[in-house]
């Protein structure tokens, strides 16, 4: 049964395609395939070696070059940025120092002015108080004198009223003693 079908199918193949069961083993087609394969391979080789591969290699190396360049440029920029930062920091530090200097200067100036003013004020105050003391002393002296005079006069009057002879010397002495006491 199987033999018949095999025979039948082989006969069918043979009738339809005039080929054996496995087309790969149909040696009649080999020269044809080999010829066209060689044509194909040579065509692909020519296309690749003349056009495609040099071009792709060029693209790749160009890209490599661009990337290297870009990296170098980036490094440059980075160095510049670092520089700029350093300059900025420097400027900042300078400004800070300047500001501190100015502050210190202003402080000393103000201090000096203040000291001056204080000294002046102190001097004025001292002068004024000395003057006042003098005036007070004068006033006090004046007052003492007038008290003495009033006391002598009063004493003399009292003595006169009492009918005695006013002994001015004794009165003076007594007043002076009382004033001291």
């Amino acid at each position, binding site marked *: 049964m199987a033999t018949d079908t095999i025979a039948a199918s082989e006969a069918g193949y043979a009738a339809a395609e005039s080929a054996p069961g496995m087309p790969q083993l149909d040696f009649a087609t080999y020269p044809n395939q080999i010829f066209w*394969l060689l044509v194909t391979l040579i065509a692909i080789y020519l296309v690749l070696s003349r056009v495609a591969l040099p071009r792709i290699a060029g693209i790749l190396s160009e890209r490599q070059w661009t990337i290297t360049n870009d990296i170098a440029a980036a490094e440059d920029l980075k160095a510049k940025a670092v520089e700029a930062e350093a300059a900025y920091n420097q400027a900042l530090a300078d400004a800070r120092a300047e500001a501190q200097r100015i502050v210190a200067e202003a402080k000393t100036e103000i201090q000096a002015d203040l000291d001056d003013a204080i000294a002046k004020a102190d001097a004025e105050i001292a002068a004024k108080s000395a003057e006042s003391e003098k005036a007070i002393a004068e006033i006090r002296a004046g007052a003492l004198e007038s008290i003495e005079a009033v006391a002598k006069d009063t004493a003399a009057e009292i003595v006169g009223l009492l009918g005695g002879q006013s002994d001015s010397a004794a009165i003076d002495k007594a007043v002076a003693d009382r004033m001291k006491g």
Partner: protein
Amino acid sequence: MASEATGAEEGGLVFHPMDQFIIKPLFGGGDIAWYTPTNATLWMALSILAVVALLVLGSSKRAIVPGRSQSIAELSYGFIYKMVEDICGKDGAKYFPYIMTLFMFIVVANFLALIPMSFSPTSHFAVTAVMALAVFFAVTILGFVKNGTAFLGLFWVSSAPLALRPILAIIELISYFVRPVSHSIRLAGNIMAGHAVIKVFAGFAAIAVLSPVSVLAIVAMYGLEVLVSFIQAYVFTILTCVYLKDALHPSH
């Protein structure tokens, strides 16, 4: 297959998983001479166009910041270039265009073959064997030209005990000559197997009960085939690089 074939006779189930690989003349019938344009020719030509579109048109803008197609072109370039350089060393870089040619052809042909109703040139032993033999002869000739008779040191395993070396030399020699065979059959076999399996599942889709399962299976196999298409191209290329490294530095 026998029962399936009987099924084909009885229920109209059609299983011709290998029919997709049949080479037909594009125009009319007749014999296939060496110059006849066939469906293989068509799909090889389409793969040339795809390579041109991807690598030439894709990179035509020469943008510093790549677009989508240019990214793919650059990725494939960088991928293969790095592979060649890693495996073969700096002096292998001048063979990069040849390896790139092989890789681009295989990967593009593999992916184009995933289009339904398309034809896969890389599933044919004639195609893969030519590429594998070209690699084999190129590597062998290059090895002798670069290293002279020192290239034969590849077969003389100097790290092995002296008594074992002749035996190892025979084994190494055999494995060296098996290289083009495995190199070509791996690629063609993988592509053929995947496409045939998809076709078998497609045949099951004619049975109403099985059709959902078979459609799911086709989707799964298709996903696997996308992966396999790339991996086989990668493996073919990386093995080419390894063989090339043997020719350039046989002492390793």
